[in-house]
Structure formats: structure tokens, C-alpha cells
């Protein structure tokens, strides 16, 4: 199956897209600019159309250049609107997104009116048409991805700093504005790579989702960024492979569904941060607390009676005592901290020691 020429192209395209969007999306997410990817990808549509009108044919290079150009203009408009008007960032993003998309559709219908035979397939940029990827397109995409990755590696320290502490970066004399512009333009580059694969509408998720998934697994940028690239590539390839299973299974939406699946799994299962992980941790904590509570209660009762190991916990042993307490007693018994003597629950020697330790700790903390 992998010998199929089209499929090879699609898989390679998906790998490139996953790598570049995962890496750049990580920086965008950390800088709280996730939705910028959404705006830039919608803004690529008029650029594609302009590129087509200029070149007169569906030549990938000029389409990509056009998309990059309008992406940059859109990013600039967002900055202008938020800086010089009283609109907030979300409104500025929405405004630029919707109007540039509308402009793209206007240009699209304008091109259709030109009756140019070569125009076929421009619509494909809405949702992407992975199967139409050519080797020459791949070369371009690979070039862009390589450029972006080299830039990220070369400027790693600087990018890291402006993600986590832009104020400090400025105080250190880094050209923060320039670096932010470079990062934004590179997101536009990722969008350009994704045009053919997933299309302008769904590209937003490719920028956000791998980064969000990777973030759950590691708090370190050095781990998170490669992991995001890995998630992006894995989603791309699985989407591409699933789409070969039947007719009507479009690659773009499938890639998005796969990457969303990764996000869900990561949110639930990631060590320490995952929701299930947290639930299990809470459960363990609660159980430990209950055991400690019971131990110290028995201990206090015993000291009250003046007999170090005597327990007055008869009620605990009765069948009609509340089931939760009974469960805790069983757990303690299993750990060998509590023993049953003559229908009385008593602390064992270990239990006595453990309870004393807990109390000492608590009192130590209180003082």
C-alpha cells in the first residue's frame, strides 16, 4: 500500500505539516496566540487567489507566496486594530478572519468568472485536497519546513525567553518586536504548508492541537516542542492512512479528528497533569487521610484509657457500623497496623508507632 505514489506524497506532506505546525504552534500557544493561526489561515485564501491571478496558473510557488503575503498583512491588521483602536484582541482576530475570508471568496468567484481552464481546484484550498499533492509541491513544503526549523533551532534561546518572560527579554536588550514578528511570520509559513493538506478552514486546529497535547506530557520546552512535532506528524500520517480506507473520507478533516483524539488522550492520561491521573491521585490521598484519621483516633482513645495499645473500637467491628469506616479498618488490618482481639480493634505495635509518628508530624507542623 505504501508503494502507491499518491499515498507516498500525502504521507510525506502530512509529516512535513505535522512537524512545522507542531513546532510553531507550541510557541504560539505559550504566547497565548493560538487563535492567530485561525486568522492567518483564513487570511491565506485571498493570497492564494491573488497568487493565481498573478501567475495565471495553479503554480504552487506563487500561490504560497500570495498566501504568505496576505497572512503577513492580516497579522499586521490585527496588531494595528488592537493597538490603535479600542477593540480587543478577540474582536480584531474575528474581524480580520471574516473579512479576509470574504475577500478570498470574492476573488474566488472573480477567478471563476475569468473562465480560465487552469482554475480548477482552487476550491480545494478551502478543505485541502491532499491527494492532489505533487512532488514539486512537496519540495517547496520541505524547503519551508526546513527553513522554519533551522530558524527555531538558531533562535531557540531567544524564542524561549520571549515566550516566558518578554519583559526580561526586553531588559536584556533583545529585539523583542523583531522576534515576535519572526514568530508570527513563521506561523504564516506553517499555514502555507498546510494549505494543500488540510485547507484554510481547518488549519487552526493543526497549529493548536499538537501543542496542547504535548504540553500535557512535559513542562519543559525542550521536550514539549519535539513532542508536539511528533504528535502533529503522527496525526497527519494516521489521517492520511485512514482516508485511503474508503470514498468520501477527506484527509483534512480526518487529520483534525486524529489530532483532537491525541489531545483528548493527553488530557486524560498524561502523567501528573492528566485528568484521570489526578483523579487517581486524589483517591489515593483521600484513602491515606482516612487511614491516618482512624489510626490517630484509636491512638488517642488508647492513651485516654491509659493503656498504650488498648482500643475501644468495638463499635468499629460491629456489622452495623458505617461501611466506609469498616473498609478503612480492613485496609489498616491488611497493612498490619490494626489487629482484632476479642472483638476489639486494637493498634498493633507498628500501628502504635505509625500513629505516634503522624501525630508528632502534625504537632510539629502546628507549632
Amino acid at each position, binding site marked *: 500500500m505504501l508503494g502507491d505514489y499518491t499515498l507516498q506524497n500525502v504521507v510525506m506532506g502530512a509529516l512535513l505539516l505535522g512537524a512545522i505546525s507542531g513546532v510553531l504552534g507550541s510557541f504560539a*500557544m505559550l504566547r*497565548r*496566540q*493560538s*487563535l492567530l*493561526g*485561525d486568522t492567518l489561515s*483564513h487570511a491565506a485564501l485571498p493570497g492564494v487567489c491573488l497568487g493565481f491571478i498573478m501567475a495565471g496558473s495553479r503554480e504552487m510557488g506563487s500561490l504560497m507566496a500570495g498566501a504568505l503575503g496576505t497572512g503577513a498583512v492580516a497579522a499586521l491588521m490585527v496588531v494595528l*486594530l488592537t493597538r*490603535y*483602536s*479600542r*477593540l*480587543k484582541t*478577540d*474582536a480584531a*482576530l*474575528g*474581524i480580520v*478572519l*471574516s*473579512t*479576509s*475570508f*470574504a*475577500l478570498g*471568496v*470574492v*476573488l*474566488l*468567484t*472573480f477567478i471563476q*468568472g475569468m473562465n480560465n481552464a487552469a482554475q480548477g481546484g482552487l*476550491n480545494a484550498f*478551502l*478543505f485541502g485536497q491532499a491527494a492532489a499533492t505533487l512532488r514539486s509541491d512537496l519540495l517547496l513544503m520541505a524547503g519551508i519546513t526546513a527553513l522554519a526549523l533551522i530558524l527555531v533551532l538558531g533562535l531557540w534561546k531567544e524564542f524561549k525567553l520571549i515566550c516566558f518572560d518578554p519583559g526580561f527579554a526586553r531588559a536584556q536588550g533583545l529585539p523583542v518586536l523583531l522576534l515576535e514578528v519572526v514568530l508570527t511570520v513563521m506561523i504564516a509559513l506553517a499555514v502555507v504548508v498546510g494549505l494543500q493538506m488540510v485547507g484554510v*478552514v*481547518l488549519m*487552526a*486546529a493543526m*497549529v*493548536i*492541537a499538537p*501543542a*496542547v497535547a504535548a*504540553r*500535557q506530557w512535559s513542562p519543559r520546552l525542550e521536550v514539549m516542542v519535539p513532542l508536539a512535532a511528533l504528535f502533529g506528524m503522527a496525526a497527519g500520517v494516521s489521517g492520511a492512512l485512514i482516508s485511503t480506507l474508503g470514498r*468520501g*473520507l*477527506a484527509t*483534512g*478533516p*480526518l487529520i*483534525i*479528528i486524529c489530532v*483532537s483524539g491525541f*489531545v483528548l488522550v493527553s*488530557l486524560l492520561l498524561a502523567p501528573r*497533569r492528566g*485528568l484521570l491521573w489526578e483523579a487517581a491521585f486524589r483517591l489515593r490521598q483521600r484513602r491515606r487521610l482516612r487511614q491516618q484519621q482512624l489510626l490517630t483516633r484509636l491512638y488517642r482513645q488508647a492513651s485516654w484509657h491509659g493503656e498504650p495499645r488498648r482500643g475501644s473500637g468495638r463499635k468499629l467491628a460491629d456489622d452495623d457500623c458505617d461501611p466506609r469506616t469498616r473498609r478503612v479498618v480492613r485496609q489498616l488490618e491488611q497493612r498490619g497496623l490494626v489487629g482484632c482481639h476479642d472483638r476489639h480493634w486494637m493498634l498493633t505495635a507498628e500501628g502504635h508507632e505509625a500513629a505516634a509518628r503522624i501525630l508528632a508530624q502534625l504537632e510539629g507542623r502546628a507549632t
Partner: protein
Amino acid sequence: MLAALLDNPGVMIVTVGALVGIAATLVGTFLVLRGTSMLADAISHSIVFGIVIVWLLTHQQSGPLQLIGAALTGLLTVVLTELLINSKRVRQDAAIGLVFPLLFSIGVLLLNLHAGNIHVDTHTVLLGEIGFVWLDTVSLGGYEVPRALLSMGAMTLLNALFVGLLFKELKLATFDAALARALGLAPGVLFHALLLTSGTAVAAFDAVGAILFVAFVIVIPATAYLLTDRLTLMLAIGVAVSIGASLAGYGLAILWDVSIGSMMAVMTGVCLLLAFLFGPRHGLVAQAHERRRQRRLNESRTLAVHLYNHEGTPEQGEENVARALREHLLWPSERAQQAILKGLDEGYIERHGELLQLTATGRAMAREILAPGRE
């Protein structure tokens, strides 16, 4: 007369476009003011999912079931986003961007799988076909009324009722959510605005599609927001912009033979750009003008204080002359000249040969600057 209007495609198209704008503005205003514009974007993308699901279940393309389905999808989008945010694992912006592409993808995929037997294809989903609204009509009281006109009219009415009846609650919840909660004055009312947004998106779906709707629901209120500080006025301006954009968009689309709905959306963007540049108080031109006025004012105040400080001192002959402004205050000669002319015009300095002298007004002004409130 009415029949002639209803038969005129142009009139119908412009009316439907304007109604989409008006209905969207009524709810969109509150979303823009609350800073949740991108939620509107997310909702309008994900109703595609709702529309496809309802179609698969009931085989109905429009009607109340579709509206309910869409409202539920909107609800689902909001709830899922909130859930992600509340898990504290994902920030708000990323949460929005995770939910709607997934729902949209599932919708598109289902659409593709059933492409053979569903009239909405992926193209219509995105763009709608406002140019054909006059073809799809229903009989009503002897008239053939376009279906889109009816549904958009009903939606506009519903939104207008909502805003009209709950105006006080909406206003409070928008501008002071904490007070609204403290007073128990329907703090959840904005949530219903989101539901109505998804309803409006569905009603507008046939006309402008899922993505162009975003332009109507965000750009028009944002334009109005740049032009006024009053909520009622903002709604009124929104209505005016809707009508204007619809008319201009239709005209230009016919002229250039391009998509009508998109051209209307582009026109809303043009309106926004105009408001951004030429708005009366917040526009760029007005801001530049205001800054220049401030600079001039500052210059005349500086001049007055300078003259006042050297008035009657031995250096007066050297300091209080035009040359000194250039050499001591380091003003370019143009600026010095303008400041002097302004001072002469407004009557707080006088010229005696070389010497510039403060008048009584000018002296009072300088004293007020140096020792405010003391006479």
C-alpha cells in the same frame, strides 16, 4: 406593489442580507462588548455539525428542528470550551480553537460520506447562496414569499424581542457582570445571547453560510463600537451599517460578477476600516488631530511660562525674543513661529519691536500653570 417587490430578486437579496446583518448585530453587540467574539466564530463553524446531524436523523433541511439542533450545537461548543478551560489544562484561546475544528471536521466528514443524497455540499456550507434565495419560496396569504426572508425575518424579530425585553439585564450583565450577579438580575442572560447567536447562524446559513456569518456577527457591532459609546446608539448604528453593507455589497457584486454574500461581508469590513480611520472620537484621523491640538496647547503653555519666568529680569531682552525660542528651547523655527502666531491670535502675548510680552491673560495663564489654584 408587494407582489412586485417580492418578485424582484435584487430587492429580496438585499433585504435578506440586511436582515442577516440586523439579526446578527442584535446579539453580536453583546458578544463583542464582552470580549467573546471568537466564541461567535466557533459557534458559526460548529453549527455545521448540528445541521448535518439533524439532517441525518430527520431528513429536514430547515425548520424548527434545525434551529433547535443548531442551538444545541452552539450550547455543546460553549460547554465543551468551558469544560476545557475549567480543567485548567488549556487556556481560553486554545480551548476555543480545539473544539470547533473538531465539530466542523466531523460535520464535513459526514457531509462527504452522504454527499450523494444531501443538497448541502461543503461549498454551500461555507459560503451559502444568497443569490438564489428568491428561488425557494413558500405561499403565504396569496404571495410567494422567499423562505429565507421568512426565516430571517422571524429570527430578527425574535432577537429584537430578546434585546428589547431584556435590555436592562443585558446591559448590566455586559458591563458589570459582578453587579448583575449580586443583584440577581439574570446573570445568565448572556448565555441566552449565545444560544440566539447559534439560532441566527442557522437561519442565515442558507443565505451566507457558516463562515461569512462571522463577518455579520462580529464586524458590524465592532464598527458601531468604534463610532459610539452608547449601547442603544451602537445597536442603531449596527442596523444602519447592515443595510448599507447589504446594498453596497449587492451593487458591487453585480457590477463585478462575484459572490454576493461575500461582497456584503467585505463591505462590512470596509465600513469597519472607514470607522477605524475616520471615526469621530476614536478614529485614527481624530486621534492624530487631537494629538496635534494637545501639542500646540503644550507649546503655547511652554511659551507663556518661558516669557513669564524672564519677565522684568535683566536677561529679558535676550530671552523674550523669537530667536531665544530657537536657541534656548531648541524649537525648530517653524514651530517657534507657529507658537508665536497662535499666541498673538489668541491674545495672550503682544509684540513690542523685538520683545515678546505677555498680556494680562497670558500672565494669568502662566501663573496658573506654575502655581495651580493660587492667585
